């Protein structure tokens, strides 16, 4: 079985988000980059399938050379090899097109992704890749088993979950629950050393069509100063919520 895992290089979850002075772009100064946490669940799941089913795991990232440390980390976690499409991604569609172009000829049985990236939160790439490849798509997956040419995925729905059987090849977008947080693989020294020599292929982009442009960006406006209420005066808190905020 061949698995393709799509990873995105995103600002570390503790990052403060700032924009350039003219507000036209995200300010990358001083940012630490990590594998998108939701993609990490997908990657760990793929490595588990590699162990249990002898699958091979390829990671793909659409990004410029600056994303290579994150790709190497994915290799250290256990992927067999990697592809980087040499394009600074501009929107979900252009990213999906590149992934689909690589997947088209790769003969992958399963494409795994995080359900969204924590930077632009489009949540669109996995579904677009599935449609571009004319494959079934299961989103918000919190469980996955593979049995021959079929997968059984559990997807989260509002107020519950649904178990679905899916014919492979398919695209599955996962989140926490696909594997548990405690089962995420932290690369050890051996993994880090072997990642250095694993193949990382760089391919040039197939197209450059962009469908959505980020025109400008705003930071979240600060809230007014907090009003502190004494724990002995909860009547005042109830009054404020009722009369001032009008939320109860």
């Amino acid at each position, binding site marked *: 079985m061949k698995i393709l895992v799509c990873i995105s290089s995103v*600002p570390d*979850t*503790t990052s*403060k*988000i700032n924009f350039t002075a003219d507000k036209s772009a*995200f300010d990358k100064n001083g940012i630490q980059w990590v594998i998108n*946490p939701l993609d990490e669940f997908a990657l760990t799941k793929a490595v588990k399938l590699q162990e249990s089913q002898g699958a091979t795991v390829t990671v793909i990232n659409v990004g410029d050379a600056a994303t290579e440390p994150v790709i190497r980390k994915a290799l250290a976690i256990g992927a067999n090899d990697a592809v980087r499409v040499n394009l600074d991604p501009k929107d979900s*569609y252009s990213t999906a097109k590149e992934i689909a172009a690589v997947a088209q000829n790769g003969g992958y049985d399963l494409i795994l992704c995080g359900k969204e990236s*924590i*930077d632009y*939160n*489009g*949540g*669109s*790439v*996995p*579904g*677009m890749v*599935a*449609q*571009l490849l004319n494959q*079934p798509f*299961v*989103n*918000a997956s919190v469980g996955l088993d593979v049995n021959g040419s079929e997968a059984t995925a559990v997807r*989260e*729905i*509002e107020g*519950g979950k*649904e*178990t*679905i*059987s*899916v*014919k492979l090849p398919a695209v599955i977008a996962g*989140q*926490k629950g696909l594997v548990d947080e405690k089962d995420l693989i932290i690369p050890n020294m051996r993994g880090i050393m072997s990642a250095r020599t694993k193949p990382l292929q760089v391919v040039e982009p197939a197209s450059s069509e*962009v*469908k*959505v442009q980020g*025109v*400008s*960006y*705003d*930071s*979240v406006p600060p*809230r*007014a100063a*907090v*009003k*502190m209420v*004494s*724990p002995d005066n*909860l009547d005042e*808190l109830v009054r*404020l919520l*009722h009369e001032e*905020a009008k*939320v*109860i």
Partner: protein
Amino acid sequence: MAVFVYAENINGVYKKAAFEAVSYAKAVADKAGDTVTAISINPTDSSDLLYKYGASNVINIKDEGLKNFSAKAFAQAVSEVADGNIIVFPHTTDASSIAPMLAVMKNYSLITNVLEAPESLSPFQVKRKAFSGKGFMHAKAEGNGVIITVSQNAFGVKENAVSGSEEIKNLSVANEDTKVISHEQSSGKLDLKEAEIVVSAGRGMKGPENWGMIEELANVLGAATACSKPVSDIGWRPHTEHVGQTGKAISPNLYIAVGISGAIQHLAGVNSSKTIVVINNDAEAPFFKSADYGVVGDAFQIIPALTEKIKAIKG
């Protein structure tokens, strides 16, 4: 500029998110000088519910093959009837699975997590949530067609009654790639993303056995319950309740955080809540800086007392 909207239902019953999406579509249609056509798949609810929010046409797709959800088959069905250049979806799990596939089918731009009415229609430009709630992006669509998903609780449900008419479309879409094996839905539980009030708790609760008081406060307020990441990681509460950067992003009218210190990752998922109340015994908890109201003290005394006081005014 014909405006279409996907009115999502669960087991035939329209979701609040559907009414919000129709309300949004109506605002777009008013700006465009056009009308709203709502599309629904196998609803049992009356179309009157959609006219109430501004849909003057309702297309009810009847298709036995679409009894079970499949992103691809649903996208195919919507694609067959959505004959407009603006298609609005709610940003629910199902809709945000359908929308990207539909965008590729129609060769339209897709803008997700939309927060406000569009800034302009041609080109279509709109404010959306980005960086997990730590920033906003003004996104511009290229080309003629655009699909948007509206972030839940952002635009709001707005009554705007019109007289409407209904059309039944019988489709038979191929749905062979996926098969639903089981479907579990807890009845009577308020959906976290739709909830207008959310009561959330963190490690300060000391153990899962203490969640009864959180649930009781939520119950009295008609609220959903949530939790911080460490709490779902330890297994005190299910993953589905985790709110934050890698969990769910929510925008209720009132968010009450109990025993949560307010790490930047947690704030990212909740800071678009309209009013935030923080209850914590540590006066230095960073969350107070992002709160509207704060109480420093022992949650084990405050929560039951607060519950009683709210019960009294709800009387």
